[in-house]
């Protein structure tokens, strides 16, 4: 597909841009790996000691040399070694990624399972009281910061009910799916809350648009019953904005949900990058931001492919 190849060609360009941006910005931040490791004690180092440590962390060269070295490695798939983890950056990322992916998938599933039917329902009840209730709920969902939702969930469950999923020791899905889901469900709900609200709102307005289209009138004129009109004729046409929104949100979620990961103590990408920034683990910050950006672009690509799947005009057109 022509359009696809053009998108693929811009991939490396954008990635290069991202890598330069992250490289420069992380180095503009005061403090380095040495102060991150030694804290105020770093002041006790003699100049020779400091030089030795800079060489150890690979920050003794100029930026350009560092970037060149890093880029050369990255092109060969070597993102460098994380100083905090003492492991190749890619290994560290790939250890954290499954959780982030699962969390993103679960939140999206919740958002779509709740938001889509709610939005469609509201659209068919346009301007009636049930529509208003759904809309108000959706707006409240959209206007509550997710840390408030997360903290309230934890608080209500632990104080009010005395139960809480195991926090801290995270169980991978394939080790014990039940326990894993038990751990993931609350963060997923926290993230899915606002996500579902957005899906509700966008699917409602898209459905309203579609329901006023000529072909819906045609379907009705053929005697298609109300449910058939909604699910078979209208919904597939209303999905594109929903896919767009879900794609963007999902893409962001793949970058890690810093706040929710922090509250629920999940070892995901978001916290990893946050910690990497705080600990000045340059290689890890660079590698993971690049990884996240790549994911984001792949998700966008998938979204575009989904458009083609949904809409034959895009599938067969020579866009």
């Amino acid at each position, binding site marked *: 597909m022509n359009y696809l190849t053009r998108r693929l060609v811009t991939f490396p360009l954008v990635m290069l841009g991202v890598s330069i941006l992250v490289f420069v910005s992380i180095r503009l*931040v005061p403090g380095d790996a040495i102060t991150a490791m030694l804290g105020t004690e770093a*002041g*006790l180092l*003699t100049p020779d000691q*400091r030089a030795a440590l800079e060489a150890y962390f690979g920050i003794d060269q100029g930026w350009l040399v560092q970037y060149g070295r890093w880029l050369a490695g990255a092109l060969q798939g070597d993102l460098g070694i994380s100083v905090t983890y003492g492991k190749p950056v890619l290994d560290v990322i790939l250890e954290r990624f499954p959780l982030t992916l699962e969390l993103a998938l679960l939140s999206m599933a919740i958002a779509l399972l709740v938001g889509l039917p709610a939005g469609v329902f509201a659209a068919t009840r346009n301007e009636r009281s049930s529509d208003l209730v759904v809309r108000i709920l959706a707006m409240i969902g959209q206007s509550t910061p997710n840390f408030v939702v997360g903290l309230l969930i*934890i608080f209500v469950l*632990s*104080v009010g009910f005395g139960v809480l999923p195991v926090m801290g020791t995270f169980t991978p899905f394939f080790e014990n799916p*039940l326990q894993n889901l038990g751990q993931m469900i609350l963060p997923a709900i926290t993230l899915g809350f606002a996500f579902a609200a957005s899906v509700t709102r966008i699917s409602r307005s898209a459905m309203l648009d579609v329901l006023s289209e000529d072909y819906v009138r045609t379907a009705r004129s053929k005697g298609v019953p109300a449910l058939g009109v909604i699910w078979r004729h209208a919904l597939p046409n209303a999905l594109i904005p929903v896919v767009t929104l879900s794609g963007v949100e999902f893409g962001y979620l793949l970058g890690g949900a810093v706040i929710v990961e922090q509250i629920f103590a999940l070892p995901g990408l978001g916290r990893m990058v946050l910690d990497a920034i705080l600990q000045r683990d340059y290689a890890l910050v660079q590698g993971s931001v690049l990884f996240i950006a790549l994911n984001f672009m792949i998700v966008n690509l998938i979204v575009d492919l989904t458009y083609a799947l949904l809409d034959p005009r895009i599938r067969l057109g020579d866009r």
Partner: protein
Amino acid sequence: MGLPFFQTGAARRIASGVALAAMLGAATLTAPVAAATLRMAWSQDATGLDPHKQTAFSSIRLLELIYEPLVRLDSDLTIIPALAQSWEFAEDGKTLTFKLDPDAKFQNGEKVTSADVKASFERLMAEETGAAARANFLSIASIDTPDETTAVFNLSQPDVPILTAMTSINAAVVPASEIASGGIGTKAIGSGPFKLESWEPNAKEVLSANKDWAGGTVSVDGIDISVLPDETAILAALRTKQVDFALINDPLVATLVPNEASLTLDRTPVLNYHVLQLNPSRSPMTELGVRQAISCAIDRQDVLDTALLGEGKVAGPLTMPAYATDPAELFCYERDVEKAKQLLADAGHAEGFSATVIAATGEPPTAAAEAQVIQSQLAEIGIKLDIKMMELNVYIDTWLKGDFDMAVALNGGRADPYSMYNRYWTKDGNLQKVANYIDDTLDDLMQKGRVETDPAKRKEIFAAFEKHLAEMSPWVWLYTSYIYTAQQQNVDGFVATPTGSLFGLSAVTIK
């Protein structure tokens, strides 16, 4: 005080709890098996495994469970044996001899020998290691190893505090073989009570008991440490019995622990001190009167009551019980706004001035609150403070450069006054640039204290030092706080030390 605003009847609470647990899946209930593994949580993880390089409290707490120094401090800050069974200063104070525990073994099975001690200290002293603690050991001229269990430190000058410095895990003895192979920092092979089985930074550690530990018998099978970055989550985990033992930093969270009948909160006063650092090289803090005015204008107890909910003790510069003076005897520890105004006016700043105070975000958790109370208190004498919060590393960078008017800080304390303060208040102290204050009296007292071996005389010297320091007010010392450990009823035997060490976990039992 606690008023849980979702109060429910006990019966309903249990019933709904069960229902909810079922809903969330059986997995959410904590394992009922009385495992002998201690489940523990903390909010800040270690940042590395090299005992000679890591200086953050969070790293030291972990490494103290794995590595051992030659000597360590007990809960009264008395020096007690660790790897060394005994030690002795020579008459001239220039030779220090250690006798090692012949049973001590590293976790790789090798015996701990005097060669390891020599190699460890040589590594520590080498510039390319980049060990911050090197500054404390500059007086070591050479190390002799007459036999496997004897290590002799030859000092270039009498140095009493060096023994206290050796209690730090930053002076841990590591296997010479690991030094040679370059494995320090990537693996953790110590001689301590626990072995590090796995470490996932910022997520969790798994420790197992070291059966061969020469220092005693560890009664738990191991420790699973979870990193829960949000301390409210730690509290929630304690409430739902997911963890047996937790370390808490934030007094706001800690004070909630006793509300839960099944939990015990232990608070131990620590040597670390909360302080408002002034920069005496910056006008108008160059004026003694201005600094003293600030000291007089601050109501230390009020800051403590507000920012830490009273969780701490107003303290002078010397926080170790053996040397501490009653704060009431120190300069202006009773707030005196009138005097402050007078001092300020005498210094030519009757109408006050503006300054910026820096503080680190979340380190300590109470920093922002302290800054705000101080801001409000100083406003009363016309000093307008501008608070600048900084991410920790940015703060450290700024702090090390001495690039601030004032700084809210939580600085580390030591069991020995000299080790604690020589870096700031001697003329060639490594952090003299941070303190930015040169005072012959302080320098002189420091040097005297360093070489004096008679405890009573030392105490006298440092009492004079403390009094002078408080009066000169280069900094405004506020108070010391607590380290908090919370534990379930089934945990027993933990003893905390004022250094904040969790070494006491080696003696913990689980019922």
